[in-house]
């Protein structure tokens, strides 16, 4: 179905091709997952499938890419729209019509499909993706998971034979991600669609994949079964990391597969894991007292009482719209409480401005780029030093510690997601705020970048910073946090030690907890620390 024949792709005057003499064949009806670290060429590979690379992005392509026999050399993306459906990383930004139903029909209108066929296909797709209740809704009112499914539906109505998905679940909470993946699974199994999907969150998708396309980052590409690739890559979900450490064969990819070989491990592990060295807790740096926030008729937070102490890493979890971002906003003074109080070391954050605010609280928003506006990394660091009154060179030193060497002349927008996050974090940390708030920090981060982030957060906590991170990423929460607060519909439904909260919930439990249940182990590190002799 998808054929790459000696394909090399080079952008601009870059000396090194992104893909170097790649030949691969993806047969019809296969769910094929593209894996590789950031910058290894995943998006380029996906873009080449429908000719967006090079017709839209520029760059030089040699060799041939053929989809169902059509060569992208002679067919621009619009001429492939009836064969390949492409859904980008941020589907909400790519909607054209104003209601769900019109959005679903838009592609077919461009392809001049007959009206009666259009009518039928829209109904089919509404049912297939569970969108029937949303048909009259405005596309701007959809939640993340709904928007993703509408975007898939909008290309599906054209009856394509190949579906290309770029990070379909990265921005979604676990339940919404399940919805989207279930829909994709049905498309592959019931309709025989060929799906090519890139995703960083392997723990969510790897068990659905028939084959993996692995981009090691040197321009080559390998196609093999998930087990064989997972045996060798550096980026692996926790189950695979544990299985590889324990030498289980065949390699399990799902919790169910891992339960059986883990039985012996469960029998021999100590009942209580040896805890990691947690930072000693200091005094409270932030408190919320009966905090209520209302937006018009909507109550976003209902009488929340919470305090965060120095040295503590708190994971804030809950589905989209549960009030996580609002709580962070209230803690840093952006959101005005309707009732109740917020205090940062005795002061109301709403009263703080300028340098006083940055010295009390540092915030890294969902899009770290919002904080940055310098033309180069070096300029950004200098500005941060000047604005916070720090010794010149402080921000640059923090950045080096967080991210290693970063080219100082690069524009912040040209950094990888992980590097940009580190730059924003460095800028914020230059003021040495006692409280650090992060909103969805792992969006677009690969596993190595996530490991570095966890290490960084731990070090910051050890230095006495309090960290609150709002996240959907259960693995990150398990690795980094000592305390978990679960919000639902504006209420705190659970607040306690991460180990206790997370193991009690099927939604928020990390993979290792599910494999080793009922033992309260959360991460591979827990296992290694508690029983180094059990892992060969």
């Amino acid at each position, binding site marked *: 179905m998808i054929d790459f024949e000696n394909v090399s792709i080079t952008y601009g005057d870059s000396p090194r091709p992104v893909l170097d003499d790649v030949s691969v064949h993806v047969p019809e009806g296969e769910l094929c997952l593209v894996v590789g670290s950031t910058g290894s060429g995943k998006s380029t590979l996906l873009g080449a499938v429908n000719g967006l690379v090079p017709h839209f992005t520029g760059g030089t392509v040699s060799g041939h890419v053929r989809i169902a026999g059509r060569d992208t050399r002679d067919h621009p993306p619009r001429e492939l729209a009836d064969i390949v459906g492409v859904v980008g990383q941020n589907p909400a930004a790519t909607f054209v019509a104003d209601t769900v139903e019109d959005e679903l029909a*838009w592609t077919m209108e461009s392809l001049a499909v007959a009206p009666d066929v259009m009518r039928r296909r829209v109904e089919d797709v509404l049912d297939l993706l569970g969108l029937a209740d949303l048909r009259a809704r405005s596309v701007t009112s959809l939640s993340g998971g709904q928007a993703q499914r509408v975007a898939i539906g909008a290309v599906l109505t054209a009856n394509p034979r190949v579906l290309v998905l770029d990070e379909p679940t990265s921005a979604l909470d676990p339940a919404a991600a399940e919805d989207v993946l279930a829909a994709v699974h049905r498309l592959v199994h019931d309709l025989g669609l060929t799906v090519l999907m890139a995703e960083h969150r392997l723990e969510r998708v790897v068990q659905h994949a028939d084959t993996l396309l692995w981009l090691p980052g040197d321009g080559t590409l390998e196609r093999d079964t998930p087990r064989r690739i997972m045996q060798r890559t550096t980026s692996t979900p926790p189950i695979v990391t544990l299985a590889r450490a324990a030498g289980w064969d065949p390699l399990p990819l799902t919790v169910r597969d891992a339960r059986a070989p883990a039985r012996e491990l469960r029998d021999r592990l100590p009942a209580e894991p040896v805890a990691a060295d947690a930072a000693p807790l200091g005094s409270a740096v932030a408190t919320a007292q009966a905090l209520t926030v209302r937006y018009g008729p909507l109550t976003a937070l209902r009488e929340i009482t919470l305090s965060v102490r120095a040295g503590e890493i708190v994971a804030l979890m809950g589905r989209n719209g549960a009030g996580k971002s609002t709580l962070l906003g209230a803690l840093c003074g952006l959101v005005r409480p309707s009732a109740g109080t917020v205090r940062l070391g005795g002061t109301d954050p709403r009263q703080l401005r300028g340098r006083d605010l940055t010295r009390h609280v540092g915030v890294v928003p969902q899009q770290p780029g919002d904080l940055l506006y310098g033309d180069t990394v070096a300029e950004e660091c200098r500005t941060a030093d000047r604005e*916070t009154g720090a010794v010149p060179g402080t921000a640059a030193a923090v950045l080096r510690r967080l991210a290693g060497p970063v080219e100082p002349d690069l524009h912040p927008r040209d950094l990888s997601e992980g590097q940009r996050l580190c730059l924003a974090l460095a800028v914020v940390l230059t003021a040495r705020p006692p409280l650090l708030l992060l909103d969805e920090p792992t969006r677009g981060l690969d596993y190595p970048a996530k490991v570095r982030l966890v290490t960084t957060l731990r070090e910051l906590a050890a230095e006495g910073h309090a960290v609150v991170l709002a996240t959907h990423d259960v693995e990150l929460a398990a690795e980094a946090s000592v305390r978990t607060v679960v919000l639902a519909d504006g209420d705190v439904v659970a607040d306690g030690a991460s180990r206790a909260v997370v193991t009690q919930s099927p939604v928020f439990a990390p993979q290792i907890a599910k494999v080793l249940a009922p033992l309260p182990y959360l991460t591979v590190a827990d296992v290694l620390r508690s029983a180094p002799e059990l892992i060969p």
Partner: protein
Amino acid sequence: MRATPRLLHPAAWWLWALALAYSSMRTNDPLLLLTIAAVAAVVVGARRGRAPWARAYGLLLRLALLTVVVTVLLQVVLGARYPGHTLFTLPAVPLPSWLGGLSLGGPITGEAVLNAFVSGLRLAVLITCFGAANALAHPARLTRILPAALYEVGVAVVVAMTFVPQLAESLVRVRSAQRLRGRAISGLRGIRGVAVPVLEEALERAIALAASMDSRGYGRRAHLPSTTRRLSGAGVLIGLGAAVVGTYQVISASGGNRIAVMLLCGGTGLAAVAGFVAGRRVRRTRYRPDPWRGPEWLVVCCGGVVALTYVLTVHDELTLGVPYAWPTLRLVPFLATLIGALPAVATPDVPSATPRVAKPALA
């Protein structure tokens, strides 16, 4: 028997609003103007869609009110002096004669205030008519009935319109982010700090949207010889231009003449023919086209009755001022205007949709 709820054809509402707007342009009688605004408001209240854009009506109403207030204030402070009944006297500042009769301060007459009020009101009624059309039928729905030749222009306009709320959203986000960095948001550097990320994001969004539209088959065309293509393009432009000039001549105060009518008809005809030829290039179909049935005719006829009555019975001398007296109600145009409110009850109800819940976002 109640009709099944549905949205009416957008063109019906826009023609109806156009008729009301045209009527308002023929009069400077404050009573009639206020009646027209009230009629529009009644219909909007009864038949506006449940989608977010319909809420822009309230915003436009406020803008209309502001127009009236500003016009009156400007007249009081800066306007040309009218002789008549002095209400009060402001200290006068003599202005040089080359400013063309403008004056600052001086005696303020009731006539001056009344005339400023009426001219402000005419503009305000025009705004409310536009707001009504926008609330009753989103302009995006209008693109669905555009002829094929203009379809792509229409999509560009609609996409540009969706960028405005998105721009506002990212502006709010970036501003809060700047505040979190402890940075002043005012001043030249502050503006740069906000504008650069917002514009970068808008650009990235535009590129992502263009890529997605291209992948979804937008801009597929059938082949036409290039001379035909160029000729038809030029034909559409020239024809529309001539039609616009003709329309202006016909409705302007100077009155219609034969050349204007010929320009209008000839231009429209040329544009239609050229548009048809160009439209053969665009291959697309329409999903669930809005039907045009009885209620649509009713809406258009109600608008037509209002406009026709004004053409026949209202001959206000717009260039002369309004007499300084309590206006008498002219019964015929007043009753005709009320007919314009008929669609509020005589058309099918709008289908209900789930309301939009605003999602707050941090920074």
